[in-house]
């Protein structure tokens, strides 16, 4: 039977761990609320952007942007992987990386090279050996679009130069506080969604020229999608951490209960032993 003192110190240390996980759970819960608000606030921009781009896909434009043109051969593909900076958030990053690696393995089978840009230091650590060309870490809980533009530009430039022929975004989708879904979406070429088809032909008036405006718009479009993914990922991170810390707190509680039982049994056993020693000692004297 383990010594009483050892069990007592074990209980003490688990209690301390429980305090920490409880605190982390509460911090994550309050941060999640704010992250969700931010995610919802940024959604209209991405939605409207999508709407404008789909309008454009509908019109008969004089200038076809390269992002809307499918390339015939695919030699290299690019990935933008959005992960977290910190751990202790359950299987959030692990599931995401698994999904990305599957996708990358598929391309490798077709002997297509892969270039990767990552957001978040967890992703950088995981994908370093796969050829990371750009990274952006330590963005904090309130990522700002200006900080991301550089990383995105690396990939867009690579596409413009023909170094990559497709660009994918690997992100976590915030389904609800309990569920986050990793998913891979194609950014470039832009996948035409099902649109209401207009029956007449039209084109925009452009100010200044069409190329300038559409280039700007397309770049913004990609940036807004990535920004949305990063903001959403913060909300995912916080809710995943909240859930992970809650179960850690519960587990610590369970362990403490078990150890307490063990401690009391041991204490009782030692008392019983002591009494029986005294009794037998007294019997020997008589």
């Amino acid at each position, binding site marked *: 039977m383990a010594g009483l003192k050892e069990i007592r110190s074990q209980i003490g240390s688990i209690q301390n761990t429980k305090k920490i996980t409880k605190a982390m759970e509460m911090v994550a819960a309050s941060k999640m609320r704010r992250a969700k608000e*931010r995610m919802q*606030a*940024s959604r*209209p*921009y991405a939605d*409207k*952007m999508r*709407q*404008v781009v789909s*309008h*454009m896909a509908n*019109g008969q434009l004089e200038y076809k942007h390269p992002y809307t043109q499918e390339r015939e051969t695919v030699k290299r593909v690019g990935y933008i992987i959005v992960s977290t900076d910190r751990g202790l958030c359950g299987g959030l990053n692990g599931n995401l990386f698994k999904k990305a690696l599957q996708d990358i393995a598929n391309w490798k089978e077709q002997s297509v090279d892969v270039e990767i840009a990552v957001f978040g230091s967890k992703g950088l650590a995981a994908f370093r050996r796969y050829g990371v060309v750009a990274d952006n870490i330590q963005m904090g809980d309130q990522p700002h*679009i200006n900080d991301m533009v550089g990383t995105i530009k690396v990939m867009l430039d690579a596409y413009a130069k023909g170094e990559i022929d497709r660009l994918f975004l690997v992100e976590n989708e915030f389904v609800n506080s309990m569920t986050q879904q990793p998913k891979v979406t194609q950014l470039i070429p832009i996948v035409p969604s099902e649109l209401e088809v207009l029956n007449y032909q*039209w*084109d*925009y*008036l*452009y*100010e*200044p020229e069409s190329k*300038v*405006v*559409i280039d*700007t*718009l397309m770049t*913004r479009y990609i940036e*807004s999608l990535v*920004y949305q993914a990063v903001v959403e990922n913060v909300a995912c991170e916080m809710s995943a951490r909240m859930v992970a810390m809650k179960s850690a707190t519960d587990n610590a509680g369970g362990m403490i209960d078990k150890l307490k039982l063990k401690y009391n049994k041991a204490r009782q056993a030692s008392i019983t032993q002591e009494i029986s020693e005294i009794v037998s000692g007294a019997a020997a004297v008589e």
Partner: protein
Amino acid sequence: MASTMHLDVVSAESALFSGDVTELFAPGEMGDLGIMPQHTQLITTLKAGELRYQTEEGENTSLFVAGGIMEVQPSVVTVLADTAIRAEDLDAEAAVAAKQRAEDALNGKDPEDLDYEAIQAELDAAKAQIEMIHRIGKTLR
């Protein structure tokens, strides 16, 4: 009854306005634009300046945009602003400080590593804000 069009003003961080308007003035890259309902399809980049619209009730509202893109369809107008601030939320002191900062940067001693375009854009945005604050200030008093 004047016809209306639907206007959406969104920036990356938030949605600022969504509703029906009867007319709209926007700071287009090539000059200010007045948009009425049933305007032909138009797409333009915006520069820093004032975005003003009139609602059905004849109420005028001003927003500050620091550049962006505007798409016009006959019945829908979408403004994708880089940054948009409600006129009453504009901070005069902050704008003046930003202008000063940009000017200092432009007159900085090390012209080699200056990002002229970025600073110029910042300066333009600050100037446009200050100008707008002055104009609103006048109409309020």
